[in-house]
Structure formats: structure tokens, C-alpha cells
């Protein structure tokens, strides 16, 4: 009887431990049971993080960047599986390495093609050995609402001598869009993955440094096109709309365009949205980087080429982190240079990491053709520190968004029932889930850090009733497909009904 009681207590304790979300971090000293390797765009780490929080508990985020700042190349998450996912049992310690620097085709599309040579990844030892808790952080707290930042500081990552084939790759939009000038391995033929699936909708925007935002909040599509194609190189070619600048040409000053590298989903999306490439064929306009070459350097990341020097610049940033870094650098420099950047909206300017001084945004997202991504009011403002509803993207009034894609090397991979395929399939299910979105209005469903995140594509929604973060129009995995400008949503929408 005593033995039985003890066994019951033990069982209860184990059950309680397994069923609890209390922070019992795996810790860097524990060897992972599984290590999985993924890759994709620099706009997707938060979505991967959100999906990870659905699959694992006590999750830590490791970084090699000093001062506990987010890593610029790898998003490395380490936690314990909540439930069994196929052949991956519950209670196992799993490390996920997501590589993102260099563009979403480079990391999420091309590596999934049959001819791929894989991607470089750090050794597990270099991630965990000598890793220390970031000052002020709590171990295992990555998924705690309001957190979502690195919890462990690693030393310098040591890259393995042999590349690895990632189990899946994420691209900001469908892989065929990375053809022609969007293909970093041109003139070779576009390398397509073995299989692709459309997942959530990824919202992009135009971010401008705070000095420019003080003068102008609203840009027309043709103004953005002129800047991206290089016909507008001085701010005095545009008119302002803010106090002291409204209705008059902006003060003269060279345009600083924080551009992206070829293969970047950011760049591909902006070429498609503003320049009509490739869907408009002969009517497409080529980016200035193609016509004139990049002018100003190869990568910001807080160092030159963006300096307080006169002259038009078209800076080739290698990740969204580089763009954010240079926007901050320029805003802080106080030299009056005004910058504009193509940037996905998972980089909200209102959070501390994207501000130069607490409460002061280094940059802001502008309206496009009089339409912001949200209402711009308190509690529903991408540029604030709190939340966004993405309401205008959901309605289709704000059209700068695309359906991100989940790519695998072979069509049968996800059903091959290996630990790798089963865990990848679990991620796919989360990335398609209508309950994943990070926009406000879905309590408890925000991304780590309460940051703006994704909206679910209509193709993947099983219901729209009560769900506020599902777009009511869809790219259907095809950037060429037109987006209908829905003006109103009459309450909740039953799937299959006409929202108008």
C-alpha cells in the first residue's frame, strides 16, 4: 500500500512536471536529444519562434551577437517537446537551428532544390559551450508573452565543415517569383524545391527614418516606384504632408535607399508590388540596383557605408536586421540624412530594440496611397509599442503582402515518417494554423514579445468566424494574382460566403 502510494505520488509529480509550463530550462549543459536544421528569410524567425512555442516548453533563444542582441544569421531555439509529434516523443530536448541571413530564396528556396549543396550551420558545442544567461533574462522564458528575445549568450559560433540539408525552407513568397533579376545565381536556371506549400501571409512595408517621417507620412505607389527604380534620388523631388512641410517640396537632400540583396524576399516583394516585376512583363520597371548597380556599399549592419556623407546611396543590406541597424544609425547620427527601406512588418519600430532612445522610434512605417496597414490609432498601430490588427491587409485595402511558402526537397519528405520529417510536418501545421497569427485581437495568440506577426492566408483557414487575423483575400501562392480591395467586412465571415 505504501509502495502504491509512493508510486502514485511519483506518477502525479511526473505528470505535473510534464503538464506544467513552469520554466525548467533545458540549459546549455544538456545535450539535445534531437537537432533539426531549417532555413529561410529574415522575416520568418518570429513565425518559427511562435510555432516552436506551440511545440515545445521552456524554450531558450541563443545568440552569438554581443550584449544579448538577436543573432544576425541564426535563430537557435532549444526546448522540450510538449507532446509527441510522430516519431519525436514528448519530453525530448530539441534544438532547432534556423539560418536566415542572405535572403529567403538563398536560405529557403534554393537549398530545397535537388541540386542543392545545403547550408552552413554552427556546431552544437559552439552554441551551448560557454553559453551564459543574458543579464536580466530568465532561462526558458522565450515563449513568455512579452519576451521573445535571446535568453542565452553564446560565444562565437563555429561553423561545421560540411553543409547540411535543411529539412525545410521558408520563402517570403512563392519560389518561382525569384526568377530573373530576383535570382542570386543567375544566369543559371531557377532552382525549384521538390515541393512547396503556401502558409501564412507576410506583410511588408516601407519604413523611413524618423527625420523623414517628421516631414512625410504618406507615399504614393509611384513615389516608391521612383525611389526603388532610381528616378528619384533627391528628397526635394517629393512633397511633404506634415506640419511645416505640407504641400511643399521637401528640403533638398540625397535619398538613402536601404535596399536588399538579390535573393531577398523583401526585395522580390517590393519589385513585384511597386515595379511590376516580373508579372507585368514589358511594363515592369527594373530596380536601380539592376540598372545602376548598388551605390553605397554592400551591407550596413551598423557600420559604413551608411555614414553622414552627402551623396545618393543604394545600400545592399543582407538582412532585415541590417536595414533596421542602419535606420537606427542614421536616426541617431542626427546628421539629417533621410533614409527609406523596404522592410517586413515583423520589425515594429515601437519596441525597445528598434528605438534609439526609449519611446523614440528610429523609424516608422508609412502609408501607401493613403492607406496604413492598420487604423493607426492607439492600440492598433504598427508604429506603436503595443499591437496592430493588420486590418487593412486583412481587408485587402493594403496590398503589400504575400503568401509565404514552406519548401521541402522532395514531395514525399513530409510523409516519410522519420524524426526529421515528423517534426517538419509539425512546424508546417503550425505555420498554416489560423490560430498562429500574432496580430492583436487574438488574445493569447500573439507572438513572443507581443510583436506584430503574420496573418493567415484565406487558403489555410478552416473558419473565419471569430478569427480576426485571416486575410479575406488570397494570393493563392501566386504573386501575379490580383488582390481585391475589400472595403468592409460585415462582421464575422462564414467561409465560402461573399464578404461584400
Amino acid at each position, binding site marked *: 500500500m505504501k509502495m502504491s502510494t509512493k508510486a502514485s505520488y511519483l506518477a502525479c509529480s511526473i505528470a505535473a512536471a510534464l503538464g506544467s509550463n513552469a520554466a525548467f530550462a533545458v540549459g546549455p549543459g544538456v545535450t539535445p536529444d534531437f537537432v533539426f536544421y531549417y532555413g529561410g528569410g529574415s522575416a520568418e524567425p518570429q513565425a518559427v519562434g511562435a510555432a516552436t512555442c506551440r511545440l515545445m516548453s521552456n524554450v531558450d533563444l541563443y545568440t552569438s551577437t554581443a550584449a544579448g542582441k538577436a543573432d544576425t544569421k541564426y535563430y537557435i531555439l532549444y526546448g522540450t517537446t510538449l507532446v509527441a509529434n510522430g516519431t519525436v516523443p514528448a519530453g525530448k530536448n530539441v534544438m532547432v537551428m534556423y539560418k536566415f541571413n542572405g535572403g529567403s530564396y538563398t536560405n529557403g528556396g534554393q537549398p530545397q532544390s535537388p541540386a542543392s549543396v545545403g547550408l552552413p550551420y554552427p556546431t552544437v558545442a559552439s552554441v551551448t559551450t560557454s553559453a551564459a544567461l543574458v543579464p536580466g533574462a530568465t532561462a526558458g522564458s522565450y515563449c513568455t508573452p512579452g519576451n521573445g528575445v535571446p535568453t542565452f549568450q553564446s560565444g562565437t559560433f563555429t561553423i561545421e565543415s560540411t553543409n547540411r540539408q535543411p529539412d525545410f525552407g521558408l520563402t517570403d513568397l512563392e519560389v518561382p517569383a525569384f526568377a530573373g533579376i530576383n535570382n542570386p545565381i543567375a544566369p543559371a536556371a531557377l532552382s525549384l524545391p521538390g515541393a512547396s506549400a503556401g502558409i501564412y501571409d507576410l506583410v511588408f512595408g516601407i519604413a523611413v527614418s524618423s527625420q523623414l517621417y517628421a516631414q512625410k507620412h504618406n507615399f504614393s505607389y509611384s513615389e516608391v516606384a521612383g525611389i526603388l527604380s532610381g528616378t528619384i534620388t533627391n528628397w526635394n523631388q517629393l512633397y511633404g504632408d506634415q506640419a511645416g512641410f505640407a504641400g511643399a517640396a521637401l528640403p533638398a537632400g540625397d535619398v538613402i535607399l536601404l535596399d536588399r540583396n538579390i535573393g531577398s524576399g523583401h526585395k522580390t516583394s517590393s519589385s513585384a508590388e511597386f515595379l511590376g516585376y516580373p508579372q507585368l512583363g514589358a511594363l*515592369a520597371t527594373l530596380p536601380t540596383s539592376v540598372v545602376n548597380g548598388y551605390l553605397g556599399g554592400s551591407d550596413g549592419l551598423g557600420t559604413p557605408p551608411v555614414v553622414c556623407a552627402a551623396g545618393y546611396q543604394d545600400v545592399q543590406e543582407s538582412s532585415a536586421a541590417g536595414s533596421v541597424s542602419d535606420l537606427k544609425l542614421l536616426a541617431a547620427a542626427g546628421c539629417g540624412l533621410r533614409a527609406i527601406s523596404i522592410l517586413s512588418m515583423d520589425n515594429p519600430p515601437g519596441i525597445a530594440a528598434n528605438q534609439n532612445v526609449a519611446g523614440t522610434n528610429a523609424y516608422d512605417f508609412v502609408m501607401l496611397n493613403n492607406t496604413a496597414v492598420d487604423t493607426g490609432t492607439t492600440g492598433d498601430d504598427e508604429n506603436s509599442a503595443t499591437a496592430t490588427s493588420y486590418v487593412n491587409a486583412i481587408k485587402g485595402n493594403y496590398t503589400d503582402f504575400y503568401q509565404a511558402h514552406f519548401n521541402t526537397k522532395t514531395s514525399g519528405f513530409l510523409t516519410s515518417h522519420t524524426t526529421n520529417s515528423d517534426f517538419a510536418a509539425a512546424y508546417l501545421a503550425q505555420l498554416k494554423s489560423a490560430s498562429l497569427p500574432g496580430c492583436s485581437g487574438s488574445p493569447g495568440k500573439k507572438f513572443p514579445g507581443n510583436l506584430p506577426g503574420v496573418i493567415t492566408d484565406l487558403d489555410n483557414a478552416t473558419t473565419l468566424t471569430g478569427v480576426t487575423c485571416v486575410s479575406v483575400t488570397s494570393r493563392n501562392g501566386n504573386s501575379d494574382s490580383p488582390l481585391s480591395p475589400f472595403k468592409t467586412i460585415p462582421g464575422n465571415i462564414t467561409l465560402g460566403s461573399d464578404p461584400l
Partner: protein
Amino acid sequence: MISSFRIKLLAGAVALALAAPSMANTTLNATTTGDVFLNVTDTTNSTSFLFDTGVTQAAFNANGSYSFDITSALSSFLNTTDSFSYSVISATKSGLNSVFDLTGVTTPVIVSNSNNNQGQAAISLFLVAANAVTSGSSTSVVLPTAQWWGASLTEGILSNRLFANAVVPYSDATALGTALSMYNVTGTGFTTLPSTWDLTTTLQGGTKDVLTYGPQGSPVPLPTPLLLLASGLGLMGVVSRRRKIEA
């Protein structure tokens, strides 16, 4: 024994041929040298033939005459069932200014240097891709659909930017056997060159495929024997007429 030796030689030759590095490849560019090149597009199959004349933009003499017999390279690309067109292009770029020598069925519509550069970029991208396509010749190559000249993002952009025509048929090209004017576009101005290009092929009833550039409206000189024959016949006619009168 001898037979065996011959077979070995043959096998060796075949192996060498197969192992030989693939020759591509044209070395055209649209930035510095701006070599003058010919496009023949098969608009039925969405493929094209590219020929490098070897004449740089700087060396091209607008007042001169050129003739290129490309029968051996082009003949296998042509057939009697498909539709073909041709154009001749050259582009360079210095700083932010492009210079073109290009054929057209209409006169260019020049908007701005920036607009011109959009056209130059399309040519440059086309040539980078075309140079990488494997060919057995260093002066010509047949381009598949993925790289063909007639694509909307290649010829289409050029036509749109330089001729303000974004729809097929594009304005840089015309049918085989039809003369094409050539224009020099520099900055925001253009001049019409004094001569025209023509590509006459076996499809027009000839025995060769020849690309020519020469003065417009020039009389075709008769061969000397024909001149002698004509003058002789004329003289005979005069003599005969005088004899009739005398009689």
C-alpha cells in the same frame, strides 16, 4: 589489326569530342564594348538565335558597309513553318548614360536617361544569360525559351523603354528579308543612321543566309561582263540601224 587500330582512333576521337569543354560561348556585353549583335527570334517556339558580329559599338562605322554570311550557323535554326523576325542591337553604358545603336520599325521615343538605362539593363541581363548558354560556336548560340530575346522582360522592356511600345510585335524587329533602319540613341537625342540592315535567308529564296548593312537606295552595280555585253548589243543595234537607213 589495322581495323582495330582505326576503331581505337575513332573511339579516341569520339571521346575527345565528348570530353571537350563546351564552347559557349559568346562574349557579348552591353556595357563597355557594346558589340553589335543580331537576334533572330522564332516567335512560334519562343526561341532565338544570337550572332555576335564581332564589331564593337566604337568600331561600328555608320557610313560603312558590312556583310556577314551566317548560313552555316543560322540554317539549322530556320524552318518553313515558324514565324521569324530579326533585329540588330548594340548598347554601352558609361556612368549613368547609355548609348544604343539599334534597329527599329519606328523612330525611338526618348524619355530620359533613366528610362534609357532601363532598356540597357534589360539588354545587359539578356547577354549575361545568353553568354552562359552552351554553344559549339564562339560567335553564335541558339537560346532556349528561358533565355530568348523575344521575352517580355527582355525585348519587351527594350521596346517599351526605347520605342514606347510594350506589346508584340516589338518595335526593334521586323520580318526576315525586310530592311531595318538603325538609330543611334545618345542621352535624350537620337539620329537615324544613313544605311539599313537586312537579313536575307534561304526562306526568301536565296542560297545563303546573309546579314548586311549598307547605304540606302544605292544602285546595284552590274558585273563588268554584263556591261560589256550590253554595250556590245547597243553598238550592234546602232550599226544595224545605220545599215537599214543606208539601204
